[in-house]
């Protein structure tokens, strides 16, 4: 797995290092795919964090595992399985709660999360069943769950780019009302914004995004790319457009450094991506805490002077 063995090691000269990495076509594809996935995941994750739907997002991310396992069992391309299961899971999560829990009072939140959790566990169990039925597949489980950036073909990159373009285009169309509905659902509903339909469309888009991203980062680590850049960006600034852009930049930076680190060491990319993203998040929180403390100090100081 240590690809640096085939060439020169890390030289502390970014230009020659990148040239050396990009001498391998599969690494170029990995960077292309990683960038596409990072942009899409950051944008979707930004809305997910804003809407407090991280449990649903995590469930959708996890659902791609049975999708890939089922596709492998049936002998069709894993990409189809990813998309079918993720979008299907999004529809189930979007459709059932309100329909079945109509009139539910205080325990509605608990019931909804119980349902989401059950869907997640059942679909994961299905994935395990598919794996068990498809004997000799066990070695592939780890790369399905934890991702692999090797062996991404140019066709895959094209598909990823097209799907990401479609998803981002759809999000751009519904972006403004979705932002409104996410920030204040009741007022938006009062103004005639179709809150419910928006929520369904958003979940489907989130499903498509997780289906994309799981092909690179693996099922279990998509969530890191969804939640952490967005959470870090929202800690740093409250302005929507700026924090959205910041989330994309953080996601791309984390993915690229993760790819480079994984190239030069024997450890998997998932570990690096989550660790770098978490470091950025912790730094962002620390900066936020520091700036509010300084701001409060200034206000108190000004008050004392006045």
């Amino acid at each position: 797995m240590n690809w640096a063995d085939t060439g020169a090691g890390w030289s502390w000269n970014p230009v020659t290092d990148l040239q050396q990495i990009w001498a391998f076509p599969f690494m170029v594809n990995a960077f292309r795919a990683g960038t596409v996935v990072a942009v899409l995941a950051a944008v979707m994750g930004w809305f997910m964090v804003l809407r407090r739907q991280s449990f649903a997002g995590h469930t959708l991310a996890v659902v791609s595992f049975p999708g890939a396992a089922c596709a492998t069992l049936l002998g069709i391309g894993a990409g189809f399985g990813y998309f079918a299961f993720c979008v299907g899971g999004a529809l189930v999560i979007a459709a059932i709660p309100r329909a079945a829990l109509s009139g539910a009072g205080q325990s509605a939140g608990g019931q909804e999360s119980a349902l989401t959790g059950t869907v997640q566990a059942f679909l994961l169990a299905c994935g395990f069943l598919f794996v068990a039925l498809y004997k000799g597949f066990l070695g592939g489980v780890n790369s399905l769950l934890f991702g692999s950036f090797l062996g991404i073909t140019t066709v895959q990159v094209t598909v990823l780019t097209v799907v990401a373009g479609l998803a981002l285009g759809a999000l751009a169309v519904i972006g403004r009302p979705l932002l409104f509905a996410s920030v204040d659902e009741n007022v938006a509903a009062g103004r005639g914004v179709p809150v419910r339909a928006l929520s369904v469309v958003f979940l489907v888009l989130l499903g498509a995004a997780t289906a994309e991203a799981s092909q690179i980062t693996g099922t279990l680590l998509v969530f890191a790319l969804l939640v952490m850049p967005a959470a870090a960006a929202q800690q740093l600034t409250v302005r929507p457009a700026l924090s959205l852009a910041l989330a994309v930049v953080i996601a791309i930076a984390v993915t690229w450094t993760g790819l480079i680190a994984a190239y030069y060491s024997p450890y998997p990319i998932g570990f690096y991506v989550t660790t770098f993203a978490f470091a950025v998040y912790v730094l962002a929180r620390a900066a936020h805490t520091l700036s509010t403390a300084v701001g409060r100090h200034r206000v108190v100081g000004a008050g004392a002077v006045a």
Partner: protein
Amino acid sequence: MSAFTHPYFTHALLAGTAIALAAGLVGYFLVLRAQVFTGDALSHVAFTGALAALVLGYDLRSGLFAATVLFAVVLGALGRRSRADDIVIGSLFSWILGLGVFFLTLYTTSRNTGNGTAGVNVLFGSIFGLSAGQAQLAAAVAGVICLAVLAVARPLLFASVDEAVATARRVPVRLLGLAFLVLVGACAAEATQAVGSLLLLGLLAAPAGAAQRLTDRPYHALALSAGLAVAEMWAGLALSYYVPQLPPSFAIMAVATAVYAVALVGVRRPRALIGLAEA
């Protein structure tokens, strides 16, 4: 009933029953307090704990319990009042999962003698692989968890249903919340041995969700949740025994999901719901 002549089956039945009982009791409060996402996070932490213990050469179970209980205490210390909580939990556990991947690589590459399926076993469970000693220990620990939940059930119920009033009545709400999280952590570590870290969420959420759907009265729902969990565990084990193609973890999850689906779709509840506080 030739199944009982196989020692592996009786071990699985003993451990499975105790674990399901604990998961049903803990799961009820988890759903009531809308903390299912916390259970989800703990289940991933369990994976990292188990693999870290394997890499360091300790018993897998000590890693499980250490990681889940520690994570539960950290979550309790972070508090559950601020709105940012879901995001904090999500960021923290996805990083811990990343660490788990690191340990998995370390384990599979550094130990040539180690079994390559250890990671898969932790993730998806291997209840039919328990030895007599492991099963008895698991049952004993699950029994302690059950007793602890029952001991704090009354104040915990009060604190979960109406936190403000409970605080005013001098119920130690924060301490109870922390103790409950530790119990959830211990329960997650237990359930990992039965159905695996990825699937334990179903064992926590599905029976409790179904029980809350079927009755409004808290103690009935608590008992029903535990009863359903045990029944689902038995049915799953039997199903898996008679249809060997089905892995036991899948069979248990399938039964649990089916029961929950029936409860969700089949039971029509009156629109005006009697709140829990009045029951």
